[in-house]
């Protein structure tokens, strides 16, 4: 009975068990009409363009400076996120954004297929498409694992976008990309840039320490400067009954390392940072070479500390069985007094804490420094949250850049009084009350937001864009937040909006992040998996995770760490280190 039982995760992973593809020619018949149509339309456009070119200001692509004179078609595929809400009668293919872009820029986006992007559905469909030899659309935008991006690049169906970027990218986009010297590294192949980055706000995934401020106040504790301070705080949290229920059921810090010691929530890697290394990533050593953080001698000290925390009950006895979400739950149910996470946590999941524990307060603090004054935390990588690839055979490859430019220039940081000052479209994501104030509450003013299907959510057309959320200027978020934190009055529409929706703890946290930005430890390896990694990563990760957990739980002595390092090196680690350094030298020499 189990033979045919289909298990969800396994099926998603069935990719690995059984993959085939017809030869590259087995194109999907249903794609052809769209493609031919696109071709026809662009020839059409070309014809018209040359006609109007005589008039002077239309370039060879049919662009007159603000729009395509004759609308062009851009084919793509789409994964719809959970934040996509539509008005009655509107769909992904037919909505206010679609018609705006068609009317004002002359860009008509067509979708070969659309999938609701949850549980990796978009990735699965994309890989299926690739594996079964279907024709790729003009543009593919992808957010998620680098492995899929590499697969798309290696398919050879997408173009080197280097020249395109240099020629067509607007200043705002270029500025955002230049903010970090390493932005292109992950998609560079033999000096060619194979994908366009989707930019995101910088400093958004930096870590800081969140503490239960009501517990701190109750126990009269001072902000921690050093690891020793922090341990004293945790001791008080555990032993002085901060929640006042008379039971010894509280924890020092919420963390979970079931999957990784470099987590995105309830992170513990900062403790390793206090000993000068970060696990699970490639750090730069004193002599300039890259070394793997998990085998650094500093990691051994961090593990020894972590073991004492386990013994003293500072961390949950179940920490080894919890992932990031599980760790955060310890904090949101009011059991743990500390959590290391990102600046935006007040929005989620800390709202749960306030709901579950009336009177709870939280506050962000800088990460405490280690015994030798060392301090280090993850992040510092380019603020890129997705990649866009352009088909070699696309008729108008530059159209995507013009599309993106439009949002950088008009949406990312709109001027006061400009078209997108309040949002994308009136009646969709904003409305004006009779007295002139702006509202974004469809539940309270149903007349001003007509045709809503679900009034609990704002319909935000900006999410329908090819580029996920229009465009984001990487530096804008952090700059605005620190401005607000310093008490300056918000001026631009973006600043006014941030001041309105960001919680004060969030704004304060961002200031802390900026102040401690020198502690960032970057992962210097940004390339595709090396040959030995493909063969040995599983073995080596298993070795490390197993040894780490067993040491923390006292099932293995601390000196097991040295045996692990030897094994790691022997079993392919040395080879990987060499490959990683080779990659780094070749990539950074350019």
């Amino acid at each position, binding site marked *: 009975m189990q033979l045919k039982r289909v298990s969800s995760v396994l099926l998603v992973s069935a990719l690995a068990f*059984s993959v085939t593809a017809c030869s590259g020619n087995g194109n999907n018949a249903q794609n052809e009409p769209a493609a031919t149509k696109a071709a026809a339309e662009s020839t059409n456009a070309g014809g018209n363009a040359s006609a109007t070119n005589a008039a002077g200001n239309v370039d060879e692509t049919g662009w007159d400076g603000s729009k395509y004179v004759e609308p062009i078609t851009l084919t793509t595929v789409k994964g719809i996120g959970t934040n996509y809400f539509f008005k009655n009668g509107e769909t992904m293919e037919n909505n206010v954004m679609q018609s705006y872009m068609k009317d004002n820029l002359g860009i008509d986006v067509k979708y070969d297929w659309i999938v609701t992007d949850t549980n990796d559905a978009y990735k699965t469909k994309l890989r*299926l498409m690739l594996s079964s030899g279907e024709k790729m659309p003009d543009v593919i935008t992808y957010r998620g694992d680098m492995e899929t991006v590499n697969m798309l690049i290696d398919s050879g169906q997408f173009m080197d976008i280097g020249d395109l970027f240099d020629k067509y990218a607007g200043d705002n986009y270029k500025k955002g990309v230049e903010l970090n010297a390493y932005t292109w590294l992950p998609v560079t192949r033999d000096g060619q840039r194979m994908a366009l980055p989707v930019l995101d706000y910088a400093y958004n995934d930096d870590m800081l320490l969140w503490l239960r401020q009501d517990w701190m106040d109750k126990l009269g504790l001072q902000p921690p400067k050093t690891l020793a301070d922090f341990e004293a705080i945790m001791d008080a949290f555990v032993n002085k009954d901060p929640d006042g229920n008379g039971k010894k059921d509280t924890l020092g810090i919420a963390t979970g390392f079931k999957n990784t010691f470099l987590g995105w929530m309830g992170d513990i890697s900062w403790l390793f940072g206090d000993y000068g290394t970060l696990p699970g990533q490639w750090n730069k050593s004193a002599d300039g070479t890259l070394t793997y953080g998990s085998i650094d001698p500093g990691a051994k000290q961090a593990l020894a500390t972590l073991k004492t925390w386990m013994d003293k009950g500072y961390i949950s006895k179940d920490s080894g069985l919890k992932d990031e979400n599980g760790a955060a739950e310890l904090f949101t149910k009011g059991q743990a007094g500390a959590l290391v996470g990102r600046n935006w946590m007040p929005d989620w999941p800390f709202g749960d804490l306030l709901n579950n524990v009336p009177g709870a307060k939280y506050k962000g603090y800088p990460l405490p420094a280690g015994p030798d004054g060392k301090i280090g935390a993850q992040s510092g990588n380019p603020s890129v949250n997705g990649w866009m690839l352009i088909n070699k055979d696309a008729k108008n490859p530059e159209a995507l850049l013009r599309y993106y430019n439009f949002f950088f220039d008009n949406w990312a940081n709109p001027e006061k009084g400009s078209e997108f000052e309040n949002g994308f479209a009136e009646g969709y994501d904003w409305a004006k009350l009779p007295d002139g104030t702006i509202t974004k509450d469809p539940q309270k003013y149903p007349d001003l937001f007509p045709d809503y299907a679900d009034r609990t959510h704002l319909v935000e057309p900006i999410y329908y864009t090819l580029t996920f959320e229009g465009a984001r200027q990487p530096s804008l978020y952090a700059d605005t937040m620190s401005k607000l934190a310093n008490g300056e009055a918000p001026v631009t529409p973006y600043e006014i909006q941030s001041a309105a929706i960001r919680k004060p703890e969030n704004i304060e946290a961002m200031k802390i992040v900026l102040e401690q930005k020198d502690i960032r430890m970057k992962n210097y390896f940004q390339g595709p998996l090396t040959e030995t990694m493909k063969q040995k990563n599983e073995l080596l990760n298993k070795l490390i995770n197993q040894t780490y957990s067993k040491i923390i739980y006292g099932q293995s002595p601390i000196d097991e760490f040295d045996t692990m390092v030897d094994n790691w090196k022997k079993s392919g680690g040395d080879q990987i280190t060499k490959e990683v350094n080779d990659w780094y030298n070749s990539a950074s020499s350019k």
Partner: protein
Amino acid sequence: MYYKTTGYRLFTVLNYCILLLAGILCILPIIHILAISFSASAPANSHLVGLWPVDFNIESYTKTLNNPNFSRAFVISLGRTVLGTFMTMSVIILAGYALSKDASVFKSRNIYAWYFVFTMLFTGGMIPSYIVVRNLHLMDTIWALVLPGAVQVFNMILLMNFFKATPKEMEEAALIDGAGHFTVLFRVYLPLAMPSIATLSLFSIVGNWNAWFDGLLYINNYRNYPLATFLQTIIVQQDFSKLNPDVNELKNISQRTVKAAQIFIGILPVLIVYPFLQRFFVKGIVLGAIKE
């Protein structure tokens, strides 16, 4: 009568205790899940809900039911379940009957049997299946959901064995009357095998109702998803390791309650259809008695 002896009465008491215990062990998690589905998201996300809802609300259900795609998905699922069950049962009844004949009268049966058993173990997997469905131009049709899984070999073998267990006297009587195989199957075997057919139909119904991955693969328009696929897509296991979330995205993350509601919706057909199908269990016995 055996059930009037003291020993048997004692056993009955013990038996009821065991069954009660088993029933409780199986119903508690369902109650727990129901409680979560009727709780506010904060306590649910923090695993603070036990067997009773915390901050009772029905948002997880209204959220699901209010989704504009829900009713459509529901209808598609209903159609798919009816059609799929009908297809599967037709195919396996016919094949199961033929295979139930002994090799001495139906020589090639063994070849057929191994032909099917082989596919229980060896499967091509997702991508080749996808290519086959696509090349047959079944994409975006209900047939893509119904046909690939129509031959349930395990169920076919079970049914074949139920057929084999059917007393042969009636078949022989019918044969003497000059009936053909089809007549024998429909007049003699089917009525006798009602309990097993009801059981296998149930498996097929819940299988079709709860299948979601094929919808994802073979339906290119998300508005035409069957219910199970639709329900899968309104739940997210967010992983922000690579993403910088938006404030607005973050507000949508309280999914544990919705997930609980989804499990409950998945169980519904069992609760509705199963009691109805159980009636055939009794009928089977009665019919069996008539023939002696």
